[in-house]
């Protein structure tokens, strides 16, 4: 993975020193809250319901074991023994004291991490496919380009005060696991007919109050033009983005109001002035960054098939876990493993300090010291020899992280919601927990099949509810929590925004409502091969409405 060079290290250290001074001055009363607030936000420090919250960037979701151990250390020493992995591949700590944050940032800097640009109207952490470098269907590793974008966008003087926050995601496979069409810029790394690398460029996707699917404005951008083209997009946005209205300030609104064709024309015009100049990426530079992401030396381990076969016969729970949480690697002797942070009845995305440490140990022993954070709030071991899967499984059982539910209905994305978040209207975690318990039976989950359920505690949509096959949005009505259900969303290469199915449900009704939706799907699907989303697309909302509200309509 990428290692800081001297420049990076000095820059991060200087920032820690600067913010340490700012915190000291704030605590001494030398600067006011109005003055301090933008400074703390630039360094990832929010104020939530119970305490401050520190959001730490995990670039493109890639961690080494030293970094994960440091996160465990921070959780134990400065927080309350756990951290929360987010849908942006970041981690949040929910209880740090402001007076401890300088020490936390210094600890982070010692393992090449920071919290810069995890807030504010700037280019945020660039996210990528969590199976990057491992997936069998990948054209090329998207992370070197995410790293190039990270370097370019870090304290970029022109793009530090954009109309609104700006999120970029990159994928290197046809099958989109990075939800690129829900981002301000989505990049699909691919090869053209000549075998050259480049990107399909999507712009103007986003969730929140006005969900939009990104529009493709270029089918193939040669890789060397990545930065000049991104600069052109950001310039058009910086110039014309709506600074007058916070709710209309994201690029999605600009693209929508301008029209995709006209927007693309403006970008191309801007690009014409930038192209083939200093922002062109020299081949040597791309190669140098690529070298950081060279895969580990994956020795042949042909015994894997036999070992897995025998272990499966021996243990049904191991077999279930392999079937659900292990995916094909580009090397046949290897596999990529999803470590579910969605234990039945647990808070999605939370991991304790000792779990983080144990995962780091497992990764050191069996996975070349590499860990990923997925936007679905799980951890990934990208390279595990099939021959070691049983050992990894046994170690995960020990720390209660072997729940075999990847991609199933209990693999729920949920934002922190009203249990932590100052902006929330309703709780998310408690809803996730109850649904998880209701569908605890693995047999039942597997019968239901692939189903992405996503929950947000307010319209900001951090829990991606708009693009859940089933989405749940918490709102406040007359002082009480109410949950709106959307159906038919998806965040893959066929991204779609879900449709609101009808009136909302109270906290004590929502799990029943979800069960009704699921039972309706089971009753109407053609057979097991038709998953929930396909069935919904075929059937439309009518049978689900009938099942949820039919009685009411008749009674009325």
């Amino acid at each position, binding site marked *: 993975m990428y290692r800081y060079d001297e420049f990076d290290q000095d820059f991060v250290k200087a920032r820690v020193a600067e913010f340490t001074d700012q915190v000291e001055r704030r605590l001494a009363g030398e600067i006011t809250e109005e003055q301090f607030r933008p400074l703390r936000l630039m360094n990832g420090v929010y104020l939530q319901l119970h*305490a*401050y919250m520190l959001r730490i960037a995990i670039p493109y979701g890639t961690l080494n074991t030293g970094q994960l151990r440091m996160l465990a250390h921070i959780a134990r020493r400065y927080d309350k023994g756990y951290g929360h992995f987010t849908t942006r591949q970041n981690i949040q700590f929910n209880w740090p*004291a*402001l007076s401890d944050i300088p020490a936390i940032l210094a600890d982070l800097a010692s393992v090449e991490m920071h919290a810069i640009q995890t807030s504010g109207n700037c280019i945020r952490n660039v996210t990528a496919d969590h199976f990057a470098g491992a997936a069998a269907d990948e054209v090329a590793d998207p992370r070197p380009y995410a790293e190039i974008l990270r370097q370019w966008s870090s304290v970029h003087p022109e793009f530090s005060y954009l109309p609104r926050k700006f999120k970029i995601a990159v994928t290197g496979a046809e099958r989109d696991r990075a939800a690129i069409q829900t981002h301000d810029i989505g990049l699909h790394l691919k090869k053209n007919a000549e075998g050259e690398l480049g990107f399909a460029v999507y712009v103007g996707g986003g969730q929140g109050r006005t969900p939009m699917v990104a529009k493709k404005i270029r089918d193939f951008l040669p890789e060397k033009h990545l930065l000049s083209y991104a600069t052109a997009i950001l310039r058009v946005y910086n110039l014309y983005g709506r600074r007058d209205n916070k709710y209309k300030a994201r690029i999605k609104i600009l693209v929508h109001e301008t029209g995709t064709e006209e927007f693309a024309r403006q970008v191309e015009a801007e690009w014409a002035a930038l192209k083939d100049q200093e922002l062109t990426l020299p081949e040597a530079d791309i190669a140098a960054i690529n070298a950081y992401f060279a895969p580990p030396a994956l020795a042949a381990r042909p015994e894997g098939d036999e070992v897995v076969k025998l272990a499966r016969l021996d243990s049904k729970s191991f077999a279930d876990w392999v079937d659900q949480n292990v995916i094909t690697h580009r090397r046949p002797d290897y596999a990529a493993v999803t470590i579910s942070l969605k234990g039945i009845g647990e808070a999605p995305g939370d991991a304790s300090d000792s779990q983080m440490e144990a995962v780091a140990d497992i990764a050191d022993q069996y996975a070349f010291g590499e860990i990923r954070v997925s936007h679905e709030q799980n951890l990934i071991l990208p390279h595990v020899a099939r021959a070691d899967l049983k050992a990894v499984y046994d170690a995960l059982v020990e720390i209660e992280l072997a729940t075999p539910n990847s991609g199933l209905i209990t693999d729920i994305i949920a934002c922190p919601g*009203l249990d932590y978040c100052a902006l929330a209207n309703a*709780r998310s975690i408690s809803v996730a927990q109850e649904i998880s318990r209701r569908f605890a039976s693995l047999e039942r989950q597997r019968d239901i099949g692939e189903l992405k359920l996503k929950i947000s505690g307010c319209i900001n949509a951090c829990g991606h509810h708009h693009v859940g096959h089933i989405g749940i949005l918490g709102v406040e009505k007359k002082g009480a929590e109410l949950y709106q259900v959307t159906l038919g969303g998806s965040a893959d290469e066929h991204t779609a925004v879900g449709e609101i199915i009808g009136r909302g449900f109270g906290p004590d009704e929502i799990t029943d409502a979800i069960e009704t939706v699921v039972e309706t799907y089971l009753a109407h699907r053609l057979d097991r091969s038709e998953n929930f989303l396909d069935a919904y697309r075929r059937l439309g909302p009518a049978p689900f409405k009938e099942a949820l509200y039919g009685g009411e309509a008749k009674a009325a």
Partner: protein
Amino acid sequence: MKVLTANRLTDGEAIWYAGARGWAETIAEADVAGDKAGEAELEAAGKAAFANNEVVDVELIDVELVDGLIRPVRLRERIRAAGPTNRLDLGKQARTAA
């Protein structure tokens, strides 16, 4: 009825204004204002503490008395006063359980 709440500057701890006893870490100890004059007093205390860099996010919130105990009207404030509903071992609720 209202009480005055804020987060302590140094560590972000949720706190409530308890008059002469300063700022309390649990809502049970808060001073309750029953009329406009009482609210004005609380507000003035909050402004002073904010200006003095002791607290941030100062707010007057609606409460009611249930069996003699102060209970915020909004769920948000009830969760602030207790802790995350999924982790009874955290927040203020952890103290009373202990």
